[in-house]
């Protein structure tokens, strides 16, 4: 989880990702943030998240992002 929070903080340093709840509904991550996040996750974990998985439901909070990464075999 720490790694994911570090990546998120690199994209939106103005937010505290330990505190934030719903990244999408609260307007913390916009579509371009998601693009940057997916690119960073792909590079960091050596995975290729498919376009069909780049949907808001997979980026609502750190837990959902972690589940997504794990599904692709990315390890914390």
């Amino acid at each position, binding site marked *: 989880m720490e790694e994911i929070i570090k990546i998120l903080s690199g994209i939106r340093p103005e937010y505290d990702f330990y505190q934030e709840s719903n990244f999408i509904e609260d307007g913390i991550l*916009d*579509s*371009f943030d998601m*693009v*940057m996040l997916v*690119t960073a996750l792909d590079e960091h974990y050596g995975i*290729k998240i*498919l*376009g*069909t998985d*780049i*949907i*808001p439901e997979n980026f609502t909070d750190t837990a959902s992002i972690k589940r997504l990464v794990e599904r692709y075999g990315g390890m914390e």
Partner: protein
Amino acid sequence: MNMIFHNKKISGILCVVPQKESLFDDEIGNYNFPPEKSLRLKKIMGYDRHRIADQGACISDYCVFGIEYLLRQGSLKKDDIDALILVTQTSDYLLPPTSNIIQGRLGLGEDVLCMDINQGCAGYIVGLMQAFLLLEQKNINKVVLLNAEFLSKRTSPKDRNSYPIIGDAAAITIVERDCLENVIHANIKMDGSQGNALIIPAGGLRMPATAETAIMEDSGDGNLRSKDHLFMDGTSVFNFVQTKVPALIEDLLVTSGTAKEEIDYYLFHQPNRFMLEKLADQLGVPYAKMPSNIVERFGNSSGATIPVNAVYNLGDRLKETSFNVCFCGFGTGLNWGAMMMKLGQLQIAEIIEY
């Protein structure tokens, strides 16, 4: 809608792009976002440079310029043109059809069929389909397909969602009968219920352009645009493309009996680099077979993007040999279409500047 065409071919492609190149680095200050964040998107999305037509220039100028170049160069004879199909969303006037204007300026005969088609990013597929259908007529032997778009004139320069990826261009494709058996498979789908995902709201009869529609405002995403400008719901369009396009290609591979590996190049429409690479991943196609460099070198010129892609990436090789290609266009409508055919032995495959 699955379609099969026989004994048709593309015999030449000429693309006309503006001489003026605009750099993303110079435009960053126009956007309502921190420059460092925009710069991070530069590489991911393929924001680099795009071709922008001069104010006052119209698509007919580029089409006439290109066809006159072909006539001088010898790839086309005036008397051989039986039909002009123009696919565009940025016509010179609401009426008359811009294809008629082009016909008149070129001094083409009265028997030349002129046809404007309002289509966008799938416009190359739609245009080729229409050209092939016309070539079923015994009096039509050669069709000049024009895909021309100046969307920069209808896109807010303060909209980072759209402006950095937009490029202006015209592409001229010569389409004719082929004495050799050349089976072309195509499939196109349309979903008008999602039309609002890519729209210029004002300027038609539904919402006439007024001083009010020209007011720039932030609709909540940090970009400034007016109702006279292109609006793209990026998230919806991205999801649409990633969901619909791979299924379309897989279906076309099955119906045409083609193995994925038999396709030499997947020459797709290019909205941005990220979207293309994710499509390639989804389809299991190597990036080298699906070029994604047009948006960063020229910009996305709607229906002209695929021919620019073909000529820029395959160049003179298109004159010397033949490739199995898969064209795919997707966008406004929302529409998505693909076509598999042999492309090569062209008389001309060139990009010129206006």
